[in-house]
């Protein structure tokens, strides 16, 4: 939960902002603009980068070799943002992203991290019990798939390029993008093709 647990926290935030505003260090307009800008990033950006990589080999190579350049190429300004790294799942390897030390997350292409990603339980267990975590998400890996847990400890931010699921032959970019959820990009879930006309869930 991100809701404050101490009843005096909103007041303390207000007091800090008031003091900074009184000194001309920040303005209310700037705060609102910053919130609005952050709201513009969403997991759909990362999802589209993945979908495009499933369709376009040259794009895939760019995405894997220079995620920052790939984000810029689809219109995401990465100025001042940490470098983006994209990790390729294979038939034998599945990646899971975590930041055990804090909450590093590829916000420019995924938006706000979910609370569970920032939780003590996730941070503690991902590096030690990744398969137990995946099981909580209902994610099971095929035999012979190894888990590679990526601890985001420094300047890079990481995202997963999952294996394109079976049953998506002939799908266009939009349809593929819809398969790639935020959970898939972090590596707690695998993309699943839902047959047309079948009920979801």
């Amino acid at each position, binding site marked *: *939960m*991100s809701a*404050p647990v101490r009843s005096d926290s909103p007041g303390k935030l207000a007091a800090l902002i008031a003091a900074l505003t009184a000194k001309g260090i920040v303005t209310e307009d700037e705060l609102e603009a910053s919130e609005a800008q*952050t709201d513009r990033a969403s997991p759909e950006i990362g999802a589209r980068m993945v979908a495009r990589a499933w369709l376009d080999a040259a794009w895939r190579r760019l995405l894997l070799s220079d995620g920052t350049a790939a984000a810029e190429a689809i219109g995401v300004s990465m100025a001042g943002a940490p470098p983006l790294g994209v990790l390729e799942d294979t038939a034998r390897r599945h990646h899971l992203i975590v930041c055990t030390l*804090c909450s590093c997350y590829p916000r420019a292409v995924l938006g706000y991290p979910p609370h569970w990603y920032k939780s003590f339980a996730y941070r*503690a*267990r991902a*590096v030690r019990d990744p398969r137990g975590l995946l099981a909580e998400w209902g994610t099971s890996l095929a035999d012979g798939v190894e888990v590679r847990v990526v601890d985001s400890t420094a300047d890079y931010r990481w995202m997963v390029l999952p294996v394109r699921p079976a049953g998506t032959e002939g799908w266009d970019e939009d349809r593929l993008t819809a398969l790639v959820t935020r959970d898939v990009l972090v590596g707690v879930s695998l993309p699943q093709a839902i047959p047309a006309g079948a009920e979801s869930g």
Partner: protein
Amino acid sequence: MSDPSRITPSPSVATHDLGGAPRFRCAPVERDEAPPGAFGKRVDALRQLLSQKQLLTVDELRRGIEAIPADDYFSLSYYERWLRSITALMIEKGIVTEEELR
């Protein structure tokens, strides 16, 4: 190296250095999917602005969070930890004083 069965971590291991922490070994992950509320978004925006204005770096923010005593670290919410760190840094840097925040 620490015995995995111990619940109390070695004193050499910093509070925030949670990889593999025995204390959370069996803790289910609470699947809170809600977006940040108004408080969190505002703290986040403040942090971004202060960074853009070169009054705060992400490294300083982290260092400030890491300095929070363990009891508070584990009981405060995520963005309350941020607010605690940002406030302490603004005071440390002389940008605001404690008196101005009362």
